[in-house]
């Protein structure tokens, strides 16, 4: 049995860890609420943009030759943009994303398709290096306050390798934010652009005047659509990161509390045993006299 002093030292050490995890939880909670706000604030634009792009795509008669819609029946090369956090201590968030990436890669290599990666996040880069996935692009700190311009910069690079024909398709693998407790890894096709579906009754309102002309407006819209899709994935990734960290740190704090309780019990038992032992010694010593 551990000595009294040892037990006491361990209690103190667990207590210190608990202080840290608790503080991290509070920090994450604050960051999470900001990130969540950002996700919510971006929603109206996303919804409105989806609708307009859907209508426009349905309204343009000949979609052929539009670069960002170039569809390949059997893609030979796919670029997967893997969004991860930069730091750990966020539960199984990254692990789940990486599992999804491995699964996606296996499925596609089985069909004779090569998958390369764009690592968006330090952990993603480390992971790709470890398992030997080829990366053509590595970025850090993408989830730290994602903004439209940083999304645009990344998006421009992804669009460039697609339009140059280097890749037949570009997909995003990112943690979709459901709630603080759940973040699901999601694979979403970025390029060629999947134009949003529109409902049937909207087809009737398609008689638009379009300035300067439908095709050129659609082309420029699609570019922004790609940026916005990436931007929203980054926002969701950010919210997921802080949400996951908050949950992880909360359960760590709880575990520490439970552990302290157990150690304290052990400590008190040991203390009691020591006192009893001393008493017996005194009593038996007195009897001897």
């Amino acid at each position: 049995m551990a000595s009294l002093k040892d037990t006491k030292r361990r209690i103190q050490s667990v207590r210190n860890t608990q202080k840290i995890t608790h503080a991290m939880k509070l920090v994450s909670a604050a960051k999470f609420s900001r990130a969540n706000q950002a996700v919510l604030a971006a929603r109206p634009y996303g919804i409105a943009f989806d609708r307009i792009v859907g209508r426009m795509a349905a309204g343009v008669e000949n979609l052929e030759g539009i670069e960002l819609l170039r569809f390949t029946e059997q893609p030979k090369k796919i670029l997967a943009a893997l969004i991860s956090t930069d730091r750990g201590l966020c539960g199984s968030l990254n692990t789940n994303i990486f599992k999804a990436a491995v699964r996606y890669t296996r499925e596609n290599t089985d069909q004779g398709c090569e998958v390369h990666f764009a690592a968006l996040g330090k952990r993603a880069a480390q992971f790709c290096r470890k398992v030997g996935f080829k990366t053509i692009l590595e970025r850090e700190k993408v989830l730290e306050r994602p903004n439209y311009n940083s999304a645009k910069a990344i998006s421009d690079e992804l669009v460039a390798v697609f339009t140059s024909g280097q890749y037949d398709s570009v997909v995003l693998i990112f943690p979709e934010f459901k709630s603080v407790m759940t973040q699901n890894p999601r694979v979403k096709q970025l390029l060629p652009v999947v134009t949003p579906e529109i409902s049937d009754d909207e087809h009737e309102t398609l008689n638009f005047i379009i300035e300067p002309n439908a095709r050129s407006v659609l082309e420029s819209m699609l570019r922004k659509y790609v940026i916005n899709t990436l931007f929203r994935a980054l926002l969701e990734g950010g919210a997921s990161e802080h949400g996951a960290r908050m949950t992880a740190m909360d359960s760590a704090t709880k575990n520490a509390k439970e552990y302290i309780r157990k150690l304290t019990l052990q400590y008190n038992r040991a203390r009691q045993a020591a006192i009893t032992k001393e008493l017996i010694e005194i009593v038996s010593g007195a009897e001897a006299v």
Partner: protein
Amino acid sequence: MNDSMNTEMNIELVSPAKSLAKVKATKLSVPGRDGYIGILPGHAALVTELGLGELTVEGPSIQPTHFLVNGGYLEVVNDQVIVLLDAAETKAEIDLPRAEKALQRASERLTSKDPSVDVVRAQFALARAHARIKFAK
């Protein structure tokens, strides 16, 4: 159609990062790619790209609202107007000294004979700075 003269349009201004305004108004003026476009109630269905300039929303129930916008789209359907803005600034958000510096820098770059200057980019920067200064004053 007579009715529509009295009614107001529902106008929604959104940027990627946030929703800027959701108002009922009677007049909207936006910078199109080739000049300003005015939208009144009863306007035909329209989709257009926006350029650089000042967006104004007016109506009896609201304070006139102004934004400096740079790129985006406008959609009008049955008096439902959605304006998707790439970037929007209010007067208060504009940093005038910074814009003036940007103007100076851009014009210096344009007048210099350095072949490494990206002329198109400098011209855009110049136009942006001009618009900012004009809008802020």
